[in-house]
Every structure is written in C-alpha cells, then in structure tokens.
C-alpha cells in the first residue's frame, strides 16, 4: 500500500481523524527534535520545543494553506521557537549567573545515553555555540537538516542572498574551529 502524502493526512486530520495526526507527528517528530536539539544543545530544551511544536501542529493545522510542503511549515514553527528559546536563555544567562548553566548539568534523562555519543554532541554544541543565532540557525538548516536555500528562505523569511552570506560566515567559523581543535 502506498504511503499517504502529508497533504492527504492533513485533510484527513481536518476531517476528524486522530490517526492521521498521529501519522503526521510520527513522520516529523524526529526532525523537529533534532533541529531543536542542535539549536539549543540539550535534551530538555529540545523536548520542550518538540512538544510545543506538536501541540501547535495539532491546534493550527487548520491554518496550513497547502502552498508549501508541510515539512517547511513545520520547520518554520520549530525554527522560530528554537531561536526564541535560545535568545531567552541567553538573556537569562546574562541576568542571572547562578542559573546560567543549570540546564547543562541536567543530563540524566537525556535520550542519548552512550558516553561517546554524549561527547560528540558536547563538541558539536561547543562549535555551534560560537556562532551568532542566525548563523547557527542557517548552518543547522542547511548542513544538518539538508534543506536548500529556497526552503531556508521560506522558513526564516529572509532572502536567499542573505542566507548564503550567513552560511558562508558560518562555515568559515566552523572550519576554523575544527582546524584549531
């Protein structure tokens, strides 16, 4: 049996099918989580964003206009929430030094349990943390989520030219960091 398209599932969900929503969520939840995780660098924030996005998805799918891919629409919600969360966290870190790194200590419930894997993610976060928010977002969308410039432009509501420029600066910084390690 052929797999139903996202559009078909959205229509079924809007007609009242919970199963259709579960299928949509199952299809996109990993992308949502891993985008948020790369942006935020820890499980707890990523989990919060993932849940928020899935709730938004459930409640706002009726506003989806079918003009773009569902995945692009979901990425735009995820990217916006992740970057806002990142900004909020930075503000909190600046204003309250005691609580600044508490999230980094809360790793016991992480879904990544293997020590080597944890170290890899730690290193990845170290590198991504050196990028300004927008560069980080564009680098993650392009390099990890493997989206093309047009999709990233739609998700971030920026011009393709500005995205290419941001990506250029991001890979310049990232490769420098990798060489100097």
């Amino acid at each position, binding site marked *: 049996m052929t797999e139903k398209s996202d559009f078909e599932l959205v229509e079924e969900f809007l007609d009242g099918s919970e199963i259709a929503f579960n299928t949509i969520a199952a299809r996109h*939840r990993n992308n949502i989580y891993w985008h948020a995780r790369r942006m935020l660098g820890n499980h707890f924030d990523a989990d919060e964003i993932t*849940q928020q996005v899935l709730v938004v998805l459930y*409640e706002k799918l009726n506003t989806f206009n079918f003009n773009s891919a569902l995945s692009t629409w979901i990425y735009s919600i995820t990217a916006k929430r992740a970057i806002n969360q990142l900004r909020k966290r930075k503000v909190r870190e600046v204003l309250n030094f005691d609580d600044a790194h508490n999230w980094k200590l*809360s790793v016991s419930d992480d879904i990544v349990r*293997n020590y080597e894997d944890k170290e890899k993610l730690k290193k990845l976060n170290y590198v991504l943390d050196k990028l300004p928010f927008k560069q980080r977002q564009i680098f993650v969308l392009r390099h990890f989520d493997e989206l093309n410039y047009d999709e990233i432009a739609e998700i971030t509501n920026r011009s393709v030219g500005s995205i290419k420029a941001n990506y*250029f600066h991001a*890979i310049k910084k*990232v490769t420098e960091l990798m*060489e100097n390690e």
Partner: protein
Amino acid sequence: MSRDRILQYLSDLLSESEKEKFLDDLNSDQTLKEEYQKIVLNLDKVKQLNDVEADERYFASLIPKIKERKQPKTFKIPAYALTSIAVVLIGFFVTFDILENGKGKTSLIAGYENVIIDLASDPNYNLSEEFTDFDIFASNEVLLDKLDLNENDVDILPEFQSNNSTEYFDYNQLEYQIINMNQSEVNSIIKEMDENKIL
C-alpha cells in the same frame, strides 16, 4: 584568499563564470585542491558529530504527552464563572481567617489562595514558569495526593524540589485538575494542608 574562494563556492556565492573558473583551478592547482579537501573534510567531521544513537522510546512517548498537554485547551470556563469562583474563594478565606483568628495561618493560606485564584482567573490557563509561590504549592504532597496526580504526572518532583526548578513539572495536568475541582474540594485541600502544617 583561496580559502574564502572555496567557502564562497561551497556557499553558492560564486557566479556561473566564477564557479567554472574555480572548478578549472581545482583540477589544476594542487594547493587549492588540498585546501578544498581539508575544508570539506572538516565540514563532514562536524556533521558526523551529530551521528549518535538516541533512545527511540522517547519519540514514541511524545504523542501521549501531547494529548495530555492539549487537555486544558479544550476545557473552557466562562470568564464570569471564573470571577465568581475567585470571589467565593476570597470570601471563604476571609471567613476562615476570622473564625480561626490565627494570624500565623493567614499568610500560609493566602499563598495557596492567591495561587488558586490566579489559576482560576487566567482565561488562557497559562501559568508563569517563574511563579515561585507555585513551586511551594506544587511540591506539597497533600495537594498532589488530593489532585490525584501520580508519579508519571510529577515524575520529576525530586529534581523539581532540589533545583527549585519548574522546568519539568507538568503544569497543564495540575492546572487541569485544579480548574476542574469544585469549591468544596478546593476548601477541603486547603483545610487539610493547613491541618498538616505542610509547607
């Protein structure tokens, strides 16, 4: 210079003619080729850092969590009813305070009262995550028991108490339970909490 040119190529910032020239140079210039390979290799290394094994059970558990989280949104109480509840609660606490004539108890009860009123009068049922009084309120064992919250609902309670963090507490569940209680249930909880002098 050659480094920037490589990065421009990888970012698709070169024009068609510049791109052609770059690819020609890449074939003929060994230094450029080595520099290019080094950059590509480093970018690949970064990508591999995200190649990790995750516990897939987490993803399977998401949908039930979402459904639970959505519950409060489907429950609507008219604004006038919320105001009435708040007024009745205030009346109850004032009366209770007069009867008991215990000034020490007033502040304790007032803390809970304010929280409940805040919860009940918020039309969006959105709790502030930074609401510190709520930490005390939500970590009260008598309350949790009365609200019929089980370990799954508050499975992070020990961390929650020790870190004074509300990050993992299931607010929606608690909130949902509270707004579904009638006045006598709320009164009963407050009374029992007070009798047990738990804070």
